[in-house]
């Protein structure tokens, strides 16, 4: 699992880690049972405090995204489809919020905005479709 963090963009590092893991899990880039990097390994690799990594992992565990095993690295949890779908929806909704604000600021009405979004969807191929 690849986790990339920008220490200097203002977003708290633990939140970046949580977001990235959550995204990768909900997008299906990592399947259930995949191992997360060890706390110490990740902290050394990213040059961040191991407590930050622990904090992120703790939050992920609380959300139910990962499972702790005794003495072994954390693994991605198996989650029921309904929860998955809900998580994905939430994720997309969060990403759409700044777009909505931008639309307001630009003075674009809803119809034009939705048209633009449909066009964007058409331009981007789904991952399954690209694997032919």
């Amino acid at each position, binding site marked *: 699992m690849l986790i990339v963090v920008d*220490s*200097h*963009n*203002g*977003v*708290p*590092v*633990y939140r970046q880690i949580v977001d990235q893991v959550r995204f990768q899990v909900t997008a299906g880039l990592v399947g259930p049972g995949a191992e997360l990097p060890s706390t*110490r390994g990740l*902290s*050394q690799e*990213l*040059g*961040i*405090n*191991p*407590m*930050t990594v622990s*904090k992120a992992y703790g939050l992920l565990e609380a959300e139910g995204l990962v499972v702790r095993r005794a003495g072994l690295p954390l693994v991605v949890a198996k989650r029921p489809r309904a929860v998955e779908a809900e998580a994905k929806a939430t994720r997309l909704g969060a990403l759409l919020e*700044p777009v909505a*604000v931008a639309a*307001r*600021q630009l003075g674009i009405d809803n119809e034009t905005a939705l048209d633009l979004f449909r066009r964007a969807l058409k331009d981007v191929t789904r991952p399954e479709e690209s694997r032919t």
Partner: protein
Amino acid sequence: MNPVEIQHVSKSFGDAVALADVTAAVPRHSIVGLIGRNGSGKSTLLRHMTGLLLPDAGECVTLGLPAAKLGPAELARIGVMDQHAHFVEWMTGTQLMRYVSSFYTTWDRALERDLTELLEVDASARVGAMSPGHVQRLALVLASCHHPELLLLDEPLSDLDPIARQTVLRLLLDRFSRDDLTIVISSHMLRDIEPVVNRIVCLHEGRLVADADSDALRERFAEWIVTSRAGSLPSAFDDPFVVSAQGDAHRARLLVRDVAATDAARFEAAHDAAIEARPLTLEQIFPVLTQQASGQGRPRDAAEAGGVAR
């Protein structure tokens, strides 16, 4: 038991007040960033922790003992790196390491070898002939090789080039994860220490401004890009959570702190505007922390606003 507890410490040098009623604690196994402007009392506070300076009022408790009474046993568990780390300058690095190691029973020669190699310390040079960066790295080696429980570093990065800085920080993280170590770093290099520290203690003009978890501290602040739909933003905002404002009637950039959950929505409604909130780095909130403490609050001239995203 916290390794260091500072309780209502005040210290003056003649007329100059160096510390005024500072209360803070350094939790166990944490990395604390001690930040502040020049002359804010950071070095003074660090010196109180080893008992080199005695407070005029209050007390500093280190490793369970009042700092004034620290004995050889406790001092052997502390590693200190001073900003102007100067030693007997006629000794070579190796001779100095041998001399200093004779005072510690827990000195680890293998670690000493590893650190001198990692930090590129040329131990055969005389200390007096070493450049300041070289001396700094040597000082770090001397402070770490006896496996201290508490590491006090006063500006460990100031004289180092960017690569050496990263090496030192990686090294500190490595030692932090292997030993039961508590680190206090006093530094100006906010960008560099930000990912490494998990607590921030901020001083300004001798007074404590912040003693908090570093993520929690940063999350108290935000940058708001406010866009007015009607083009009617006022030139000054008197909301209590607005620290500084910059911009014109259409768009403004606000620096806000401690915004309650409902404040944002109320603000948007009151000014008929949309808010885009962005988080801030430590370097960006630092001027706000120190400005607030000196009571300047909102500056007169919005253009001189205390630093949002330069």
